């Protein structure tokens, strides 16, 4: 009987070393993901969301590394596994879709070669079988099998992104991590990709961690939402509820940064200032300089992420986080 919790991140800290110091892009992040759940992680540039995604996939390289914490995937802590053991997880149990398909697909190999490559790297099957799996997957993303022999530059942006998704789902992983997969695409294509993901989820039943800066997008498609700011999760909860009644000042600020298509046109407030750098962050709550509800205590003590109601977490004095 499969456990209901697929992924549990426990006090994860990760970052990268620079000449100026260690940038802790993921600073004590914890959350859980159930099987089949769609978790949206929203945050702006520099909040650490991409580092988090790479950390979960154990893809951090060079000067980037996991500092401490656990990544419990299906009962096993994969944070400390070596490369060989990780190969047994990547692509078969967890897969990733990157932001720019043009950068992630090899420009000199045909689509077929890349897909078949991915299958053969993880499964001991014949080339024919691998090709069959590839064709099957392409169909699921509405791409004609005769496109197998095309090269990435011959396809449109939307198609390339769908191929990325097909490639990620080839081996039917349990978890799909998507790092800003639609940011570079036009709004109509974006909508079709999102619909396709929902379709595939219904069919194949995988969980999704969807990372983006566009909060308005996430509300429609995700089950739960986590808002990241300066390396930390500042709010978490079921997406509709969170959208209807945000608790953290940053979330409230974000909500007032999206012009609406319907309803009255009023001046929106946005958020003053800019996100802090993550080298030697100041003490206390990191949102203090930009927060309209800040009091002197906020810059001294860091609020903890505490439950505020069923399934909701918030890290702010206003939610009782400064106990």
């Amino acid at each position, binding site marked *: 009987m499969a456990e209901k919790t697929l992924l549990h991140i426990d006090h994860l800290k990760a970052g990268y070393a620079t000449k100026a110091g260690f940038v802790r892009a993921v600073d004590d992040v914890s959350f859980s993901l159930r099987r089949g759940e769609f978790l949206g992680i929203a945050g*702006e*540039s520099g909040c650490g969301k991409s580092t988090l995604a790479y950390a979960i996939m154990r893809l951090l390289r060079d000067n980037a590394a996991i500092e401490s914490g656990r990544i419990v995937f299906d009962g096993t802590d994969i944070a400390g596994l070596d490369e060989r053991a990780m190969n047994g997880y990547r692509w078969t149990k967890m897969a990733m879709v990157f932001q720019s398909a043009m950068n992630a697909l090899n420009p000199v190999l045909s689509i077929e070669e890349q897909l078949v490559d991915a299958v053969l790297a993880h499964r001991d099957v014949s080339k024919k079988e691998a090709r069959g799996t590839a064709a099957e997957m392409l169909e699921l993303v509405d791409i004609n099998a005769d496109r197998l022999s095309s090269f990435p530059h011959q396809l*449109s942006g*939307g*198609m390339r992104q769908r191929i990325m998704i097909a490639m990620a789902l080839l081996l039917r992983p349990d978890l799909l991590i998507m790092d800003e997969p639609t940011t570079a695409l*036009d*709004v*109509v*294509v*974006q*909508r*079709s990709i999102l*619909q396709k993901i929902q379709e595939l989820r219904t069919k194949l039943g995988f969980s999704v961690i969807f990372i983006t*800066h*566009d*909060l*308005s*997008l996430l*509300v*429609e498609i995700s089950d739960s939402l986590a808002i990241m700011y300066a390396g930390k999760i500042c709010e978490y909860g079921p997406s*509709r509820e969170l*959208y209807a009644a945000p608790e953290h000042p940053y979330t409230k*600020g*974000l909500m*007032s*940064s*999206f*012009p*609406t*298509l*319907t*309803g009255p*046109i009023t*001046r*929106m*407030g*946005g*958020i*003053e200032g*800019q*996100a802090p750098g993550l080298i030697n962050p100041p003490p206390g709550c990191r949102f203090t300089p930009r927060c309209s509800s800040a009091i002197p205590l906020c810059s001294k003590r860091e609020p903890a992420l505490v439950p505020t109601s069923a399934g909701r977490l918030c890290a702010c004095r206003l939610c009782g986080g400064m106990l």
Partner: protein
Amino acid sequence: MTTTILELRNVSKHFRLTGIRNIGKTVHAMDDINLTLRRGESLALVGESGSGKTTTASVIAGMYEKTSGDILLDGQPVRAFRNRAESLAYKKRVQMIFQDPFASLNPTHTIRAIMERPFLIHGLAASKTSLESKLSESLEQVGLSPAAEYLRRFPHELSGGQRQRVNIARTFAVDPEVILADEPTSMLDVSIRIGIMNMMLDLKEKKNVSYLYITHDLAGARYMSTRIAVMYAGMIMEIGPTEEVIANALHPYVKLLKASAPAPQEGERKDEVRAKGEIPSLVSPPSGCRFHTRCPYAKDVCSREVPAMRDVGNGHLVRCVLV
């Protein structure tokens, strides 16, 4: 002083492709574009990539010579510049804000060096003291205060939002009448965008400039402008008062755009958007109505004739046979 500051009449722009493979091929970037911009008005030009909206701005800016049609600035026809004086005179009245805040400032110049140019080129500062005060005034006007602190810095020392403010300050330095804003916030963080948009709205009121606000974001267009024109594959498909066009979209493409845009307030999406096909290549655009290949309501006549713009009242025009 006429109320219409800028007018485009049947303007087309075709680029001839070079190279042996491309003999006889042209890119139909703009075809039969008609629009008017009144003083102090903000007109949004909405379209996805490949719609021709950036080319339209470039042609108005004088970067490219139009292939056919007329452009009138304040009632006077705009022709190719015969000498530097004509070029400068035009550039003092029509300016452009570029999309990429990182790429539009010369990385080897200080902000002071960058901001001085408009004043010096157009002879707007009589003396050194006058130049100094104008420099301070321009930066303070866009919220970069104290000006001295920003003047001495290099672009890489500023954040994306600050850089875009410098861009905007530079544009306003010559006191133009028309500003072509080419997706000024699309490369900025979400929480910064609204600040820039609000600032642009304030400056518009204060200086009585007109904006041609180019964007792919319908909601942003609604926030920033009172009139909207939607472009597809080089032609304007619908134009009219923003609220009217968005609330009662008549052209199938505009309906598609509206349905694809993120709308978290709507709750569950009622009708699924099924968009087949993709944005056509401008080298050989579809015959007749350029949207007919993707239009769910396409008729025979749509593939044969380009529909004319029909007036449905209240300044709302649509290029579709169904109307």
